[in-house]
């Protein structure tokens, strides 16, 4: 009986050994495309996850070999099941990073993702450095789907013992070069570190002037915070991109899913556009807002929720005020807009940027490196103007992101 257990254990031992081998996780080119430190951090985290499984296998092996008397098979079976579970958890962790790294073995894609890494890191630095906080490394990867997502650095991974060493951001295939969503995801990391969300949730619950609407928006605070972070960095570009992503069927646009931290798309898009109005006054967002309301009539919402949508829409100026202009302890008793000035990406500022940089805007390493987020704001803004500008913006954006990816090439 013990021999059978030992044989089973041998199977898991061999499997774990493969799990620990970096060459089975990703191609050498993929590892090379990472910044050295990022690679070291990842390997360290993966090794830690796998070591835990290996330790438990060795422990059980020793017990089986040293056990002089026959024990109840259920005892060993239970221990074997624990090993299997540990293996599967570690495998989930390894598999996740293997998927993240897979796209890095395609050189062109690796360059674009390095550019996304850069944008994410800069976006996090804008909020964290003034607050005296360390900036975590960012690893972006692409995947299918409509929306981006993030696994925040510092959170426990699947095996329950190791912390995610980097902010891991999913960029969707359709939005790889219209990537203002990265800034939204970077915002999640920043707000997690600065502790803004609980404060914002409380402010929304108590300050919007309607208890029901306040409670609803309070539950959406984490996503509202990230949208606000995208707004102060990329202005109208973020709103236009969000509009394009969420512009689906009415059933989705008006869906309020209990427990979902995302605001219902109908009011979320309107909030993003209202933020532009709040910050910049009149502009192209007004037309987009009107068009959105026309396309998605509140009458299409569930009858029980229509009033909630109408009231939320009415209160959006106040909600925006609470989000953008209220001082918070997380920002040193300043509003978000004092931490990161959204006027840097106002239409006027973006035009000024375009004039200052001239032909060099998308070719100079200075502009693409230092002003990556404002250039993203500029191209996203232009993309929001017309189909032709959108087409042109995507082309420009891809070109300069490839350059940026080369600048950030692993040394």
């Amino acid at each position: 009986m013990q021999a059978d257990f030992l044989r089973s254990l041998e199977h898991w031992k061999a499997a774990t050994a493969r799990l620990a081998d970096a060459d089975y996780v990703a191609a050498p080119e993929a590892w090379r495309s990472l910044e050295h430190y990022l690679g070291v951090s990842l390997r360290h985290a993966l090794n830690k996850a796998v070591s835990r499984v290996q330790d438990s296998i060795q422990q059980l092996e020793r017990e089986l070999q040293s056990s002089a008397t026959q024990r109840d098979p259920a005892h060993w079976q239970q221990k074997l099941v624990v090993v299997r579970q540990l293996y599967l958890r570690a495998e989930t962790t390894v598999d996740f990073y293997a998927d993240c790294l897979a796209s890095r073995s395609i050189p062109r894609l690796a360059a674009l993702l390095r550019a996304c890494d850069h944008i994410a890191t800069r976006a996090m630095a804008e909020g964290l450095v003034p607050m005296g906080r360390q900036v975590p490394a960012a690893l972006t990867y692409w995947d299918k789907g409509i929306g981006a997502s993030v696994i925040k650095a510092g959170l426990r991974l699947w095996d329950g013992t190791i912390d995610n060493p980097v902010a891991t951001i999913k960029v969707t295939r359709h939005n790889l070069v219209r990537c203002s969503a990265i800034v939204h995801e970077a915002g999640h990391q920043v707000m997690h570190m600065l502790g803004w969300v609980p404060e914002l949730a409380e402010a929304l619950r108590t300050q919007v002037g309607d208890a029901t609407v306040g409670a609803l928006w309070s539950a959406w605070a984490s996503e509202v915070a990230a949208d606000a972070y995208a707004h102060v960095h990329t202005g109208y570009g973020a709103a236009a991109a969000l509009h394009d992503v969420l512009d689906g069927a009415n059933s989705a646009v008006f869906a309020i899913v209990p427990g979902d931290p995302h605001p219902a798309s109908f009011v979320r898009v309107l909030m993003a556009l209202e933020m532009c109005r709040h910050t910049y006054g009149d502009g192209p967002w007004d037309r987009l807002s009107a068009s959105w309301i026309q396309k998605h009539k509140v009458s299409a919402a569930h009858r029980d929720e229509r009033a909630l949508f109408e009231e939320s829409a009415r209160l959006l100026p106040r909600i925006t005020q609470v989000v953008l202009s209220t001082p918070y302890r997380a920002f040193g008793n300043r509003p978000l807009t004092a931490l990161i000035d959204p006027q840097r990406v106002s239409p006027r500022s973006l035009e000024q940027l375009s004039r200052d940089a001239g032909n060099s805007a998308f070719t100079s390493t200075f502009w693409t490196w230092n002003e990556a987020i404002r250039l993203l704001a500029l191209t996203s803004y232009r993309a929001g103007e017309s189909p032709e500008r959108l087409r042109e913006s995507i082309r420009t954006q891809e070109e300069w992101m490839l350059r940026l990816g080369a600048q950030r090439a692993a040394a």
Partner: protein
Amino acid sequence: MSSIVHWEPESPFLNDVPSAALTEAATSHAQVFASQAESYSPFVTDYEDEIGESGGGPRAERFAALVAELADTEFSEALEDLVNEATAIAEDRYRVSSEANESEMEDSGAEQAVKAYLEPIAQAAESMLEAMAEQLAQVDLPSASNSEVDSLLEQFSMPTHDLSPVADQFLGGVLKKAKKLVKGVASKVTSVMPHAIIMKKLATLVRPLLDRVLKTAIKRLPVSVRPMAQNLAKRFLGAPLGARPAGEASEEEELAAVDPAQLEEEFDSEIAGYAMDGESFENEAAVEHALAEELAPRGNPLRNLARARKRFARRIVTLKPDEPVEPVVEEFVPAVLAALKLGVKIIGRPRVVSALSGLVANFIKRYVGTEQARTLSRPLVDAGLRIVGLETVEEREEDATGYAIGATVEDTVARLVQDAPEAAWESEPLLQSYATEAFQQAASAHFPDSLIKSELHESSNTSGVWVGLPRGSGHKSYQKYSRVLDVTLTPQAVSSATTFGGVSLRAFLADRLGVKIDRQIRARAHLFEALPGTTLGLVALGEKNVALLGTAGRAGRSLLHPLTPEAASAVLGEPGLARHVDQQFLARRGRIAVGQRFYFLDVPGARVRQARRPTLSGMRPARSSQPKIVLDFPQRELRLFLFFSETDAQQVAAQLRKKASPTAVISMLKSLHETIIKRALSTQPSSVVKVIHETAPTENLSIPIAANVMKLAGNKLARKLREWLASVLSRELTQHYDRVAGDFISAASNDADGVTLQITFQAPPLLEQIRRALKGGLAATPGLLSAFGEDTLGSYRLEMRPGFAVK
């Protein structure tokens, strides 16, 4: 000498008790000095001031001009990167096997690994150059026009290969140099040799160059290869080179590792010599190489030191109370001396070595043995040893004490040979005095402040120790301060601190990391110190757990800055953590001194910005703005290169696009370079000034000449250059604003890194006065100084190019 009987070294430690044994030992070595003083000095005779005795003449000028033509920044960088990559391969082997006892296998393993890396590079370079030689043999180059030569050269290209990016850059650099050789021979010299033969010779020189790369990587090349380049040039120049101004330190400085630039100089001198004199030069060069080989140290002093460290660390903490410490020290000190260039000069005097060992033994004897090791180990661990040793093998706490005492001995000896004047080796009281000072400083560096008198503490707000890394083995690549310091970077601090080449830290952070310090930013500073054999690539390679470091590549090592007293004050607020070094070690990262300290700033969110190389493949870290002044005597030109970093170039371009006033633009252009020009011409000739002179064919050899020029007239030349620069900019921007603005904007729009503005001042009379002053010494100085007053802006040429085009 009787007074020394009562000498007692002042201990740096608290609660120190004078020991009778200490004075006895000092006495026993007393007469060594008296007897040796009359007959032997540990130092070679100082260089004589040879200004006025140099050879010169048209032949020397042609040689100097050809060597200057061959020198190439991209080749230099590629060679430096190759040396670093090869060193990383060797280091990997040393680290893996450092705990093994098969030391011979350990050494040969590293050598074999580096050879295996370099061999395909050598083969690719040889076949590329041989193919070029064959093609050149088909054409009549001497009668070809410039454009025909250019179109021929365009046909030459790199062979396809699957080597590393660094190897690819090196091959590209070799190709570039080969093309320069063809053009240089065509335009600069009347060669006795056909081009094809010269190219074949170049092909044969690549392998010896790579052999020197190998020896550099495995630390088998002596740190000073300067005499070789010097000796090769002697044939043409007629007189020894390298005269330094009297009193200026040069030989007393201890180079930590071979400067890769010296390998290129030797390579260039050899090919230029062959191009000019053919086989007769070749024969002479063969003799020089044989002599150099003969004089090279036998064995591998650095590997021996690694083994000696380990033995010392083990033995010193296991000594029994009645066991003498002297034999342990006497075995260790010669190994330390042998690894130091200056130490080698002392090691030939056994009695002096014995005396030195005796002094050192006295210093440490009360801190050795098992009991002491246990007592000392706790404060060492508390000082942060675990922090710096995370990534390495575990080491017993007693071993930590052993290595700390060993490091103190090593540091004492290194400081002594660097700082003690010649007279100190002739007089025991003086040597005792210097040795005491060296020991106090060394002990303060390697033991926690809790054990050291407060007036000797290196820092006021932190208590760390300098620890050799990797820990747990005798193989040490560098030292690290056990505390990582939290610092606040202010705009004022980063503006006043400078990094290599005199570039301000503020500009560096903006250009290379994209970090604009316009408000206070918190960062963390890691501090390092060079040991014999240390390169900045090894420091960066060793720091696996520090973001942005962890590889020997250019990007990582380019983030290490010299920890000068000024930088330590401004950035760390701890001036005592700095070590002063000669200016020559602040010029570039390839040339550093034993004991020199460095810092790395971990700035939140910062990443290295890479930029396209000017002509070779691949990327390199973006550069900062820097001027370069070339005094080209053979061409009768003074060339001023102003390289504008991408950051600065775009800001200037933005002003020009806005049609800013000429005054505003002039002010901006000038301000970006004036400080460095001013500072460079008075203190840092080696980084910014290049002299092409018949007595100074290579950049390293031009340093002493440049120093002479600057000593004679540095400030005046700086003022004159700034005056001319202002005049040129004013004239061009007031008379031809649109053209200048258009040229600059066009260059800035190119995706190359930055913009280079070149102003060539043609035959300025003061250049001739400088030449005379260099030949005539002090007698010609009044003429030179008056020339500065009279010389007005003559004819000049203004050119703008995208990217880094400083030659």
